[in-house]
Every structure is written in C-alpha cells, then in structure tokens.
C-alpha cells in the first residue's frame, strides 16, 4: 500500500494550488474553483487519515460527506452571487467588487 505521507503530500500540493488560484485569479468563478480544490484537499486528508488511523470508525467517511455538503452549498450560493453581481455590474472580476466597502 502507498504510505500515508504520499497522500498527505498530494493533498498539501492541491491545497496550495487551490490557495494560489484564490489569491491570484481575477475572475470570481476561477476563485470559486480554487475553493473547490482546497475543499477537496481537505477531503483527501480526511479519507487518508480515516483509512490509516481508524478504518472501523465512521467519522472519517461521515465528515467527508459533510464536507461535500458544504462544498455543494458553497458552489451554489457562491455562483448565484457571481451571477447576480454580473447582472448588476457587467463584470465578474474580483477587483471590481467593492459593494461592501462602505
């Protein structure tokens, strides 16, 4: 079997790529894609730890399912906000979103 640290390394790399997408892309949809990548890195970690630490405990799988729910809710509401923003501002770049600044 592939050792635990390899899975963790992949998850760490994925998390960093996701973070970089969030920090550097101008398009808000791309930013949300980055967040999905980060959530999936978390999921990978959860399942890897579950498999290696406590394969008989259901917490690992159950929490992965709950992260999935959060990811789905985040994508649904996040994309709705972006669509709404596009309709009022004709733009989806993160620089232009300063509605909440004042």
């Amino acid at each position, binding site marked *: 079997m592939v050792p635990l640290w390899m899975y963790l390394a992949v998850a760490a790399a994925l998390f960093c790529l996701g973070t970089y997408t969030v920090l550097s892309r101008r398009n808000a949809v791309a930013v949300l894609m980055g967040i999905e990548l980060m959530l999936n890195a978390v999921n990978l970690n959860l399942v890897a730890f579950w498999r290696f630490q406590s394969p008989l405990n259901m917490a690992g799988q159950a929490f992965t*399912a709950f992260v*999935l*729910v959060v990811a*789905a809710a985040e994508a*649904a509401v996040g994309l709705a906000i972006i669509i709404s923003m596009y309709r009022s501002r004709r733009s989806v770049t993160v620089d232009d979103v300063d509605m909440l600044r004042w």
Partner: protein
Amino acid sequence: MNVLNEWAFIGVFFLIAPLLPALPILLGAVFAPHKPNAIKTATYECGVETVGDTWVQFKVQYYIYGLIFLVFDVEMVFLFPWALAYKQLDFFAFGAGLLFIFLLTDALFYAWGKNALTWE
C-alpha cells in the same frame, strides 16, 4: 477476485471505453475524404455569417435547474447509505430519514412557490 482487482477491472474499463468508439472515428478519418474549405467549415447558421459572440448570455433558469439538481444529488449521498442499511434500522431511523427528506422537500416547494421551476 479481491476488491482491488475489481477496481482494476473498472479502471481498465474506463481507459478502454472511450477507445472502442474512437476506433471507428479513426477508421473514418483514414477512409473518408478530407477537403475542408472556408465555406464547408463555416459555422452552420442559415446562410449568413455568425453575428457577434457565440457565447450569448443565457437565462438564469438553466442555473436554477442545475442548482436544485445539485442539492438533490447531494441528498442522494445520504439517502443511499440510509436505504442500504434500512433493513437493519428501526422506526427512529425512519423518522430521521423522514425529517431529512421533509426539510429538502421544503426547499423544492419554496422554489415551486417562487415560480423558479417554471420555464418561461
């Protein structure tokens, strides 16, 4: 066959499945004539050139269907294990499932009441 062998089968299947239909396409590429010209490769559009972007803006309705589908898809994630274990479960589990489905049906009825499900 052990479990991982089963998944090796699925894995190989995932690689082979697109290749089998790709074969006749490649055969077609060998046998079929290939003489493209500007008129032939032009976008199909009632005889006139496409005006503007292909990617015109679409209605929000599509997104809303996608949204409700996403939520029901995630619901399946929980209902499948529930249904799978149902034979071992008691009335409490039925109540839990009932409440779970009831809450989601609320969302469906909300969307219904807001006319979000109606195609205009």
